[in-house]
C-alpha cells in the first residue's frame, strides 16, 4: 500500500522539483494530485482546455493571460515540471531564505521574478516592453464592453505617462518595477499552503 498519487511520480523527480522550485515534498505530492485531476486526457500534460475547465479561472477577465503564462513560447502542452516551475513564482518568500547568502541563481519566487510574472501579463508579444496597444488590449480584457474606447484610451495614456521615465512611450520592466515599488509583493503575490 503506497501513496497512489505519487506512484506515478518518481522520487528522483520529486527531488529535482524540490531543488528547482523550493516546494516541500508534501506540497509537491499535493500539487501532483491536483495536476492529475486536471489532466482529463491522462497523458501527463495539460492543455489550455484543461485549464479552461476550471470555472473560477474561465470567468477571470485575465484568465487567458494567466493560462498563457504556463505554456512556453509556441507550445500547447505543459508537463508537471513546467506546471511547478510556473507555480514556484508564487511560493512565499521564507524568512530564512532572506537571511541566507544569496544563491547562485535567483530563486523563482524572488520579488523581481514575481514582478516579472505580472509584467508579462501585460507584455503580449514578449518583447520586454508594454506598448500603448498592448496596454489597451489588456485593459479591454479587464473591463469588457463597459468602458468606451475613448475613455480606455485616456486611461492608457495616463498610465504610460505616469510610468514612462525615459520617454519612449512604452513601459519597460524597470519602469514597471518602479510603479509597483511600494506594493508588498512578497505578501500579495504569494500562495500560502496550509501545511
Amino acid at each position: 500500500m503506497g501513496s497512489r498519487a505519487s506512484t506515478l511520480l518518481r522520487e528522483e523527480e520529486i527531488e529535482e522539483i524540490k531543488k528547482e522550485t523550493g516546494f516541500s515534498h508534501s506540497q509537491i505530492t499535493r500539487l501532483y494530485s491536483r495536476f492529475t485531476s486536471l489532466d482529463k486526457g491522462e497523458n501527463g500534460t495539460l492543455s489550455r482546455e484543461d485549464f479552461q475547465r476550471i470555472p473560477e479561472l474561465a470567468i477571470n477577465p485575465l484568465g487567458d493571460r494567466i493560462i498563457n503564462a504556463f505554456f512556453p513560447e509556441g507550445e500547447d502542452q505543459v508537463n508537471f515540471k513546467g506546471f511547478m516551475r510556473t507555480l514556484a513564482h508564487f511560493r512565499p518568500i521564507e524568512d530564512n531564505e532572506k537571511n541566507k547568502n544569496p544563491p547562485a541563481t535567483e530563486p523563482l519566487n524572488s520579488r523581481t521574478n514575481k514582478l516579472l510574472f505580472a509584467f508579462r501579463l501585460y507584455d503580449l508579444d514578449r518583447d520586454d516592453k508594454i506598448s500603448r496597444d498592448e496596454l489597451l488590449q489588456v485593459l479591454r480584457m479587464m473591463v469588457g464592453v463597459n468602458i468606451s474606447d475613448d475613455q480606455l484610451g485616456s486611461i492608457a495614456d495616463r498610465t504610460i505617462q505616469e510610468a514612462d521615465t525615459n520617454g519612449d512611450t512604452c513601459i519597460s520592466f524597470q519602469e514597471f518595477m518602479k510603479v509597483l515599488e511600494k506594493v508588498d509583493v512578497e505578501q500579495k503575490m504569494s500562495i500560502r499552503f496550509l501545511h
Partner: protein
Amino acid sequence: MENLWYVAGTIFQLWMSVVVFFIMLPAMFGLSLGVTEVYIQVLVKILEWATLRIQRGQQEQPSAPIPLHTGIIERVGGSMEEEMWQLRCSRPEAAGAFCLSDGVYFCMKGLESIVEDQVTQRFSSEELASWNLLTRTNQNFYYISLRLTIIWGLGVFVRYCVLLPFRIALASTGISWLVIGTCVVGFLPESSAKNWLSELVHLTCYRICARGLSATIHYHNKENRPQKGGICVANHTTPIDVVILANDGCYAMVGQTHGGLLGILQKSMVRSCPHVWFERSEMKDRNTVTRRLRHHVAAKTKLPILIFPEGTCVNNTSVMMFKKGSFEIGGTIYPVAIKYDRRFGDAFWNSSKYNMVSYLLRTMTSWAIVVNVWYLPPMTIQDGEDAAQFANRVKSVIAHQGGLLDLAWDGGLKRYKVKDSLKEEQQKMYSNIIVGQNHIRNTKTCSETREDQ
C-alpha cells in the same frame, strides 16, 4: 444431478425463510433486529483503532503528507474593491483610476483557482481525514504496520466473499418483489385499500433494498415529514438517495422513462400509485413538465413529489445551485438534508468515472452506508420573492442543516462550460471600480476638453 437440484432447492428455501422472517417481516412493520447496529459499532471501534495506528505511524514518518479536507491553500477573502485598494494603497493619490497593480489581483485570483478551486473538487469523491481500510480510498496513506495490513486483508475477504453475495441476493430480492408487488397491487380497483397496500409494498421493498446495502439511516425531525400534495426537495449525491428517503415515506418519483430493466420497474410502479415519468422529448419542454407537476400537486390527495433541484450528483460536501424550475410549481416545499458518513463508504456516484453497475458493486463492497436525514420545516414562496431567490433560500437552509458548503455554482458545470455572463459580471464589477469617484473627476476634464473642441 438430482443431488444438485436438491441442494439448490434447500438453499433457496433456506434463503427465502431467512429473508421472510428476518428481513421482510421486520421491514413491513418498520422494525429492526439490530444486527446492522451491532455491525456498525464493531466497525467504528476497528476504524478508531486503525486511525490511532496510522497517526502513530505518521509521526514516525514525517515526510508522509498529511491529507487535508479543509483546503490546500489559504485564500484571501476580501472583495474585489478591497483587494485592489490594498494593492494600490501605497499610492493613495493614484492619478488615474486604473493602476498597473490591478492586474496582480486577477493574476492571484486565477492562480489560487488553478491550485484549488471550489467547483471541480465537488465532482470527485471527498478525501478522508484518515484511512478507512478500503483500498479505493487509499490516496495518500503509506504502509504503516503488519497488523493494519492483516486487518485490511480480513476486511477485503469479509466484504467481497461474505457481504457482497448476501447483499446482491438481498437487493435483487427487494427489486423483484417490488416489481411483482406493485404489479399485483395494480390490478386492484382504486380505493383506499389499494393505496394502503401500495404504500406497504413500496416501503417493505425499499427497506429490503436498504438492508441490501447495509444502510443505517437516522431520521431527524420526523414531524416535518413531507405531506400529500407537497414537494420534497433534497440535495443529491447518488441515485440511492431515493431508497434512503423512501424508507420512511412514500413519494411520487419524477424522472425520465428508461428502457430495459429500469423501464419495467417504472412501468409497474406507476400502476400502483401515480409517479410522474416523462418521455425524453417531454423533458426538454419546461412548460409541459411544470404543467404536469402542478397538476399532480394540485390534487392534494396524491403523494408528495420528490425532486432533486441540483439536477446532478455532487459529492456531498456542498450544495450546488438549485434549478428554479422545481420552485415555480407552487405548493409547499419540504426541504430535506441528506448527509452520508464518509467513513463507511463513499456513496457519491461519479457518473463520468463509473457506470451504474460498477457504482452499485462499489457501494455493495463498502463497509456500510450510514446516513443522516433531516426533515426541515415546510417553506413557501414569500411575497416579492421570485423563484430563483426562493430556491436559494431553501438551498441555504438545507446546506446549514447538513453541514454542507452553500455554493452558487451550477452542478451542470460537471459537463458543460461556464456561461459567458459570469465573466461579464466580473468585468462589469471591475469597470465600476475604475469608473468610480476618482475617475469622474478626471474623465470629466478629459471629456470636457474634447467637447469644447
